[in-house]
C-alpha cells in the first residue's frame, strides 16, 4: 500500500491494525513486527519531494521482498520535513535535500549522515524554447519572464550561489516557494525559463526541455539519508537505507537524473 502526502503517516496506524487482525505479532510499541528475521510492520519514510518517484519505486520493491512490510512515505520540502521531525513525527528514515536542515534534527553524537545522491541545477524552458534561451546570461535579461526559487528554500539558495559564481545578477519575475512550483510555470508556458534541478526536468517529460548550465557544476545539492534515532522500526529502516545504497537503488537514482557521489 502506497500513499503520498502528509496524510500518509496517520494512515500507518490503520496499517498496523490490519496486521494485528491478520494474526501477526506486535511488539510493545504496537508498530514494528519481527518474525523469524522477516521484516514487518510499518516503515515510515520522510523524504524530499524530488525523491518521490525513485523512493516510491524502491518502496514497492522492498514491500514485494517483504510481504509483511508496509512502507509509508511523506514527501515534502526539506524544511517542512525537518519541522515534522523536530515536532516528533513518528518516522523511521529521513532523506533530505538539505544537509543543513538534516543536521539540525540529527543526533549530534552520530556524526554526519552519509550523502547518497547529488542534484545540480539546470535551466528548464517550455518545449520548443520559445524565448531562445541558451544559457545563464539569459536569466539576467529583464525582457524575459523568469522564475527562480526564493532564497529561503534550498533550490533558491543554490541558484544564488550559481549566479554569484557566474558574476550575474538575475532578473526574476517571481520567486517560487519550491522547485515544483517553478517547474509548473515552465510547463504551463507562463515563464520563459526557470532554474530547477536536473531531476525535475527528467521527471517533467516532454513539456519541458533542459539546458545544461556549466556554471552550476560546482553548486551541488547533496542528499543525506539517515535512520532516525527514535525510529519505531529500525530493522526495516536499515533495510530501506541499504536498498537505496544498493546497485539497484543507485541505478534508479541515476535514471531519475541524480548524480551519484
Amino acid at each position, binding site marked *: 500500500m502506497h500513499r503520498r502526502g502528509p496524510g500518509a503517516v496517520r494512515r500507518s496506524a490503520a496499517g498496523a491494525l490490519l496486521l494485528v487482525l491478520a494474526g501477526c505479532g506486535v511488539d510493545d510499541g504496537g508498530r514494528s513486527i519481527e518474525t523469524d528475521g522477516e521484516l514487518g510492520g510499518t516503515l515510515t519514510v520522510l523524504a524530499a519531494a524530488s525523491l518521490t518517484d525513485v523512493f516510491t519505486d524502491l518502496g514497492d520493491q522492498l514491500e514485494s521482498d517483504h510481504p509483511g512490510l508496509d512502507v509509508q512515505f511523506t514527501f515534502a520540502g526539506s524544511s517542512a520535513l525537518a519541522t515534522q521531525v523536530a515536532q516528533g513525527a513518528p518516522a523511521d528514515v529521513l532523506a533530505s535535500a538539505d544537509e543543513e536542515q538534516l543536521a539540525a534534527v540529527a543526533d549530534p553524537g552520530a556524526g554526519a549522515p552519509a550523502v547518497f545522491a547529488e542534484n545540480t541545477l539546470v535551466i528548464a524552458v517550455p518545449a520548443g524554447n520559445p524565448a531562445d534561451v541558451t544559457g545563464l546570461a539569459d536569466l539576467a535579461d529583464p525582457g524575459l519572464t523568469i*522564475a527562480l526559487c526564493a532564497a529561503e528554500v534550498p533550490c533558491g539558495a543554490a541558484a544564488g550561489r550559481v549566479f554569484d559564481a557566474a558574476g550575474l545578477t538575475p532578473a526574476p*519575475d517571481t520567486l517560487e516557494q519550491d522547485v515544483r512550483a517553478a517547474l509548473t510555470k515552465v510547463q504551463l508556458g507562463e515563464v520563459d525559463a526557470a532554474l530547477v534541478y536536473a531531476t525535475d526536468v527528467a521527471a517533467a517529460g516532454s513539456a519541458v526541455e533542459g539546458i545544461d548550465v556549466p556554471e552550476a557544476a560546482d553548486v551541488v545539492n547533496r542528499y543525506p539519508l539517515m535512520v532516525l534515532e527514535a525510529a519505531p522500526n529500525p530493522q526495516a529502516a536499515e533495510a530501506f537505507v541499504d536498498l537505496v545504497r544498493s546497485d539497484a537503488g543507485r541505478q534508479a537514482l541515476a535514471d531519475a537524473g541524480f548524480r551519484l557521489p
Partner: protein
Amino acid sequence: MPAPLLVPALLGVAFLVLPLLGLLVRAPWSEIGPQLARPGVGEALRLSLVSATLATAVSLVLGVPLAWVLARSQLRGRSVLRALVTVPLVLPPVVGGVALFLVLGRQGILGRWLFEATGFSLPFTTAAVVIAEAFVAMPFLVISVEGALRAADARFEDAAATLGADRWTTFRRVTLPLVAPGVAAGAVLCWARALGEFGATITFAGNFPGTTQTMPLAVYLTLQREPEAAIVLSLVLLGVSLATLLLLRDRWLGRGAVT
C-alpha cells in the same frame, strides 16, 4: 443561558481561539521591533491591504448584482449557477491559481489574445494578485448577500413597484438599503479571506517583493528558515486586520443596525 447552548459555544470559542493563543505564547516579543523593521515587511503589509481592498471592491461590483440574480430573478438554471459560484470555495486555491493561468495566462484562452495584441500578460503583476484574491473571496460575499436578500421582506419592493419605481430604482432605493448589513458582513468576510489568501496568489501572481509578495507569502517563506520571525509577521497581519475590522464595524454597524 441554557447549558446545551452555553457549553458547545464555550468549546467553540476555545477551539477557535486556542491556536491564536499558541502563537501569542510562542511569539518572541522582544524581537518584535527588529522584525517589523526588516526590509520588505512594510511593503508586504501595504500590498496585502491594498490588494485585499481592491479585491473586495471588485467583488462588490460584480458580486452584489450576481447575488441579486440568484435571489430575485426567475432565471432558469439558477441552482446550477449557485453551485458554480461556490466552486472557488471547494477548489484547492493552488488549483484555482492554475485554472486562472489556463484562462488569463499568456498561454491562456483569453490571456493569449491580450498578450499577442499588447505584449502584456497578467501573471506576476499586482493586478494578478487582485484577480486571484477576488476569485477566491468573492463567493463569500455572494453567499452572504444572497442570504440577506432571501431574508429581506420582498413586499417593500412590491410596494415600490406599485408606486411606479422601475426595478433599478427599486434595487437602489429599497433593496440595497434593506440588505446593507448583509452586504457589509459579506464584504468583511470577503476582505478577510482575500487578506489571508495564499495558494491562488502564489500560483497565479507568483512571489516578488513589492509587486506580488503579500503578507501570507512573506510569512510562508520566512517560515522556511526562521519560524519565530514568521510568528511575529503573522501576528502583525492578524493585528492589523483585527484593528481594521473593529474600526469599520464601529463606523458601519455601530448605530444599532446589527450588533
